[in-house]
């Protein structure tokens, strides 16, 4: 006990220094970003005004928020007309008479704010991506309730700096420091984490809790493509995946190896990651070291994030192919020594073709907006499940992506895996304008119930209810009933159009040992290039869907309908530009070759027989 007090002087100094150093460390990290004073739209501290925080004002002190707002896909993507249709087949808001605010209430939760939305009060919300614990749900509530101005404030409520009492938001002064500011460490300011991206873009899960994911339109990539970004092993997940005991691979190998979304989808002028778009890269330079300074970048970070060859709109996108792709990080030839002709394979196909051999979550197969469910949603069918996709009891059968050729700018046409999503919708008029969601509602419903004429036409089992099975326009009579209802709204020249959209698969990458390495998967008569893929379980109104314009890919195989009414596509490698050994062949040459050989063998056998008989005869003649 006595020894405890006996600190030697040098020891005490060392200890003190150590303690000071330890104490200094967190502040050293925080020194990168100054404390943040939250400002309202007028530039006043929110603690003084009590108003909603305006990220555009708050961050403007150091970052050029106007520049950011003007250079951000997350704003412009939702302002651009070609992206107005939010989901396959979903009637666009341009045709929705209820107007933009109504649309924003419904779909603003998918919008980061700014642009057109800013005019309606939904400001660009920097906190959503750049703070550590954004309260997305609180923000969504504000948006659906139409209190757009408070959305960004609600985002911060996860940190406990603001609280909603009695219907209004109150800033909690106690959570702020003496300068009425918040420390950057507390806010957790930094580059967006993968989890932050996942809040809108799909299932991203870095927790160790058993992962579950059910299709949900707000979970965009997972909903359309079945992509999940998580280091968790399939076998350990909470998903009911067929044969999962033997699936010791993570949902995505990059997530397991701690690659975050922003590593590849970096800001266009991020000096750490910047590369010019593939097409404009100088062939003789691996890298261009002349880059913006970090200061320039932080002041005007270009929020048009690097991206690949999106299925749609890539043609007029100057940044298509600007992201880091597989081969920007991975050495291909030395790691594929087993593969004959690695160069040819890499020239002809994207890495994903083999490294996303199967998708282990359900993905949208059909969205049929010609009908409406009681929840005013389309009839949806999912790929990879046989049963309700939103039930944990439904068995998920890992499904093989559809391999298509897609034009990828300077890289030419390359084979890549896709999730094929088909949609149907009503259009009217000579220009084929979408029938709006509101008009659909009016046609299908009277109050909260289905219109009696529609029930009468569709109710196959005569129980005066429309079950999910009955909710499909599979006969001309049923189509006519709905058409008449729509014509009753003054719409003319009504028809159903169907569209197939191939969505490229790039996440959910399997590690090498789980990638496709069986040559015969492609090379052989059972090649996946020739495999039949179900397009639809039924053709509403008998309308065969067409490939969406601008997808960059083409489907040259043949479509057919089986006796159960399902609609299929089978790739036809014969028509394709590539020659796949084992899968490509000319039927005439093979036919001729095969039968000429048979014929020759027959002739030879006949000739030999005659020789034999002739020799016997000659022999007898000699003997006699």
């Amino acid at each position: 006990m006595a020894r405890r007090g006996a600190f030697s002087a040098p020891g005490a100094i060392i200890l003190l220094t150590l303690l000071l150093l330890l104490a200094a460390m967190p502040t050293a990290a925080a020194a990168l970003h100054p404390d943040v004073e939250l400002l309202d739209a007028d530039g006043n501290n929110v603690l003084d005004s009590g108003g909603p925080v305006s990220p555009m004002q708050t961050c403007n002190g150091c970052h050029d928020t106007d520049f950011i707002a003007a250079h951000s896909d997350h704003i412009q993507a939702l302002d651009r007309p070609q992206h107005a249709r939010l989901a396959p087949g979903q009637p666009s808001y341009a045709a929705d008479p209820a107007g933009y605010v109504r649309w924003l209430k419904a779909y603003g939760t998918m919008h980061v704010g700014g642009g057109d939305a800013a005019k309606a009060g939904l400001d660009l919300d920097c906190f959503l991506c750049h703070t550590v614990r954004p309260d997305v749900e609180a923000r969504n509530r504000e948006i659906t309730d139409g209190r757009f101005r408070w959305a960004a404030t609600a985002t911060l409520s996860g940190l406990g700096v603001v609280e909603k009492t009695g219907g209004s938001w109150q800033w909690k002064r106690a959570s702020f420091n003496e300068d009425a500011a918040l420390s950057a460490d507390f806010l957790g300011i930094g580059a967006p984490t993968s989890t932050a991206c996942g809040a809108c873009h799909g299932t991203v899960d870095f927790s160790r809790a058993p992962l579950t994911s059910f299709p949900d339109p707000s979970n965009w990539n997972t909903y359309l493509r079945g992509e999940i970004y998580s280091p968790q092993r399939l076998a350990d997940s909470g998903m009911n995946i067929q044969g999962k005991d033997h699936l010791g691979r993570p949902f995505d190998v990059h997530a397991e190896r701690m690659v975050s979304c922003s590593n590849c989808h970096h800001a266009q002028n991020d000096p750490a990651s910047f590369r010019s778009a593939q097409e404009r890269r100088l062939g003789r330079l691996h890298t261009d070291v002349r880059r913006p300074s970090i200061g320039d970048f932080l002041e005007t970070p270009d929020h048009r994030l690097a991206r690949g060859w999106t299925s749609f709109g890539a043609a007029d996108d100057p940044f298509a192919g600007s992201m880091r792709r597989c081969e920007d990080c991975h050495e291909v030839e030395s790691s594929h020594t087993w593969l004959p002709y690695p160069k040819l394979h890499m020239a002809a196909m994207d890495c994903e073709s083999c490294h996303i051999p199967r998708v282990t979550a359900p993905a949208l197969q059909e969205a049929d907006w010609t009908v409406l469910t009681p929840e005013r949603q389309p009839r949806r069918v999912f790929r990879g499940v046989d049963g309700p996709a939103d039930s944990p009891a439904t068995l998920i059968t890992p499904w093989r992506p559809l391999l298509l050729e897609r034009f990828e700018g300077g890289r030419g046409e390359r084979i890549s895996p896709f999730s094929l999503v088909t949609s149907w919708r009503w259009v009217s008029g000579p220009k084929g304008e979408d029938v709006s969601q509101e008009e659909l509602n009016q046609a299908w419903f009277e109050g909260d119930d289905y219109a009696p004429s529609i029930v009468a036409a569709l109710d196959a089992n005569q129980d005066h209810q429309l079950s999910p099975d009955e909710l499909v326009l599979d006969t001309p009579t049923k189509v006519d009933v709905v058409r008449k209802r729509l014509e009753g709204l003054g719409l003319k020249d009504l028809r159903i159009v169907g569209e197939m959209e191939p969505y490229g698969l790039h996440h959910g990458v399997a590690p090498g040992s789980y990638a496709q390495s069986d040559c015969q998967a492609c090379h052989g008569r059972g090649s996946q290039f020739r495999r039949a893929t179900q397009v639809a379980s039924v053709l509403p109104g008998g309308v065969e869907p067409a490939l969406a314009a601008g997808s960059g890919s083409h489907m040259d195989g043949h479509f057919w309908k089986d006796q159960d009414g399902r609609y299929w596509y089978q790739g036809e490698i014969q028509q394709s530009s590539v020659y796949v050994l084992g899968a490509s062949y000319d039927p005439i040459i093979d036919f001729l070759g095969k039968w000429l050989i048979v014929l020759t063998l027959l002739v030879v056998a006949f000739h030999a027989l005659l020789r034999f008989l002739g020799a016997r005869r000659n022999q007898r003649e000699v003997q006699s």
Partner: protein
Amino acid sequence: MIRRIYLYSTYERVWHWSQALGILLLLLSGYELHRPDQLHIFGMQGAAWLHNLLGLLLIINAIFSLFYHVATGEIRQYLRQPDDVFTLAIQQARYYAYGIFRGDPHPFDRSPQRKLNPIQQATYVVILNVLLPLQVITGSMIWGAARYPDSVGRLWSLRLVSLIHTAGAWAFALFVIVHVYMTTTGHHPFSNIKAMITGYEEDERPEPTIQPQAPPEASQQEVR
């Protein structure tokens, strides 16, 4: 007295058999590449590797043999045409079409100076000068396109080349079948194969000038 004629030199025999082995393995590995779902011998990787290697050996073999044939003048076997070549060819065809059944004598007597009958001559000229180079060239193009996709450029040509290569392969398979069968049309069914192994053709027919009484059928009887 058995006539022994030295027909094929050691090099010619080695060339023939190595060529034969090469072509058979090329057909086999090629078929595995063409129909990997039907044939599993080398595996696709193995088949691709073997097919390339054999192709290379075939080219080397062809260059050597060209040198040999030119240097020794054996190339005349393929080029020199007798004046009555058409008559002889028709004779030969007639023999195959019915003479052979009656036990007619072979219309063509082989000698070291003339090893090939006119039909053989024509066939081999086509095989060696058309089909083989065609396969070698198309095969090299496929190999090159796979090796250097950038320099060969767009792949649409590869498709055509591949189809020609496939057709050539079928033709080769046909040739092999007919060729093997034709070897049995010698003085007795295996005499030609034996000749290609030992180099000597053993003609058990007695010299007709010495023993004109003995009918040629007797020798056939003995063979059986």
